């Protein structure tokens, strides 16, 4: 075996694993509802590919090869399990989609039905613990291991592993349906899927410097999941809104730190450092969503980012447009994030006093640990020359910051 063909085979496996992992897992478990079983079988098939492909060459249809190999393993396992009678229905489900031909590469032809959308809805099912929606998606659709997911969600790998196992057991034992929800339910169920994808993005966002490659990775994975979703649900404007929002934020990543690793706030970023291609794509997605005339949280948040992005062309920021979008966002759902964002926009138009009044309306209990509230508050109080109060707010904001660069930035501003 030449090292060249060895390398080629490895590259082929890597690429098929990345492109096809979720598609194959989704297809393998859509009938049995056994996500863990499908993952194990596919994992073994990938190991078999590592052994076989370098020796015998990469098959013409690598995805089909992996599917056949994985399905064989699923069937073998079910046959070997002690209580055969009990598994008979599952066995039939697995064999049922085999057309009985033994040609590994042509089984099912070149196109494997894409069941990933169903799998996304299962992962974000209301019967599954909300905190597990994102981890389940990352594992089942993208193949991330529990340790990597655990790092992004700040829990121990063992704990994350146990929670994932529990969630997958529930999917199987409770018989959660592998289907796209019906129209009357779709909006609500889709929200959960979108939120889970956005949470994956958020977990990678803090680390703007990219010092943790794993966290960087999750931002890409979230965008990739949104693309999968958009391809399957092209008529849902919120899907495009979410994709646009993440692309706008991602486009600014290179500008969020200066050469010394210092945090640069949005208003002071150099627009020339923004990734123009991503902004163009985001604009496109948002424009495609608009004619549906079904605004939602993600479209509004993307619209706000779109106004910020406009500075790259016009050189200034239309704060009244931003305030208007925040107003709509607060009407839609008065989350603290939207209310703090609105106050920051109002500060630019009407001044710090009006903005502070808006912040004061937010009930104190909900802002105890919400860092952006204290950062905006500190900024406003400093402008109003209310020194001691500003210092106090700065301390809260600094104390609540997770990002060291943000901490240093606020310490400098506090003076």
């Amino acid at each position: 075996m030449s090292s060249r063909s060895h390398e080629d085979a490895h590259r082929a496996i890597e690429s098929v694993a990345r492109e096809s992992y979720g598609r194959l897992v989704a297809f393998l478990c859509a009938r049995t509802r056994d996500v863990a079983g499908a993952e194990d079988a596919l994992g073994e098939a990938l190991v078999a590919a590592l052994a076989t492909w370098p020796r015998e060459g990469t098959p013409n249809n690598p995805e089909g090869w992996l599917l056949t190999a994985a399905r064989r393993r699923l069937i073998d396992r079910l046959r070997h399990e002690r209580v055969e009678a009990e598994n008979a229905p599952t066995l039939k489900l697995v064999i049922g989609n085999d057309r009985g031909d033994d040609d590994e590469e042509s089984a099912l032809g070149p196109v494997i039905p894409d069941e990933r959308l169903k799998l996304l809805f299962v992962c974000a099912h209301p019967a599954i613990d909300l905190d597990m929606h994102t981890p389940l998606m990352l594992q089942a659709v993208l193949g991330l291991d529990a340790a990597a997911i655990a790092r992004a969600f700040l829990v121990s790998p063992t704990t994350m592993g146990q929670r994932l196992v529990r969630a997958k057991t529930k999917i199987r034992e409770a018989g959660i349906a592998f289907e796209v929800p019906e129209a009357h339910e779709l909006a609500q169920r889709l929200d959960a899927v979108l939120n889970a994808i956005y949470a994956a993005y958020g977990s990678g966002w803090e680390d703007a410097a990219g010092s943790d490659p794993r966290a960087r990775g999750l931002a890409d994975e979230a965008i990739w999941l949104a693309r999968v979703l958009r391809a399957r649900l092209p008529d849902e404007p919120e899907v495009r809104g979410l994709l646009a929002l993440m692309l706008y934020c991602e486009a600014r990543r290179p500008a969020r730190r200066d050469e010394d690793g210092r945090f640069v706030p949005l208003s002071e970023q150099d627009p020339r450092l923004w990734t123009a291609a991503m902004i163009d794509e985001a604009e496109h997605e948002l424009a495609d969503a608009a004619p549906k005339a079904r605004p939602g949280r993600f479209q509004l948040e993307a619209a706000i980012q779109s106004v910020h992005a406009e500075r790259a062309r016009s050189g200034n920021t239309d704060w009244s447009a931003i305030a208007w979008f925040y107003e709509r966002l607060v009407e839609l759902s008065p989350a603290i994030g939207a209310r703090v964002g609105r106050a920051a926009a109002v500060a630019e138009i009407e001044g710090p006093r009006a903005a502070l009044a808006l912040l004061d309306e937010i009930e104190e209990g909900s802002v105890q640990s919400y860092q952006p509230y204290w950062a905006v508050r500190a900024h406003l109080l400093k402008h109003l020359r209310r020194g001691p109060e500003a210092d106090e707010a700065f301390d809260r904001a600094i104390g609540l910051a997770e990002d060291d660069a943000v901490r240093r930035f606020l310490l400098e501003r506090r003076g």
Partner: protein
Amino acid sequence: MQYAMLIYEAAEDFARRKNDDDDPYIGAWRAYYKAMVASGSYAGGNPLHLPETGTTVRTKGGRRQIQDGPYADTKEQLAGFIVMELPSLDAALEWAARCPASVLGAVEVRPVALESRRRIER
């Protein structure tokens, strides 16, 4: 698959059992039962008498401990159960959401463990 629906009623709903047949809550239950039977998913079940009529038994160290009252001391109490034959949890949750007791009380849906039953029957 089979699903059990464990129905927990609030005290107000329990109290309505004494009302006439034209009470809207009783009417809602009648219609609910009828619709479930008509859909072909009803596989059995029954309402239970008031929680006060329950007696809880434990055997500790070979000794029988008997206690007056229901097992769980909760605001909503177990009021009945229905077993349904349905294709998925989602279909069972649809029925649970329609249950008249889900407004003031709560409904828990649990898959029936047929494999455990087979082991006992063997």
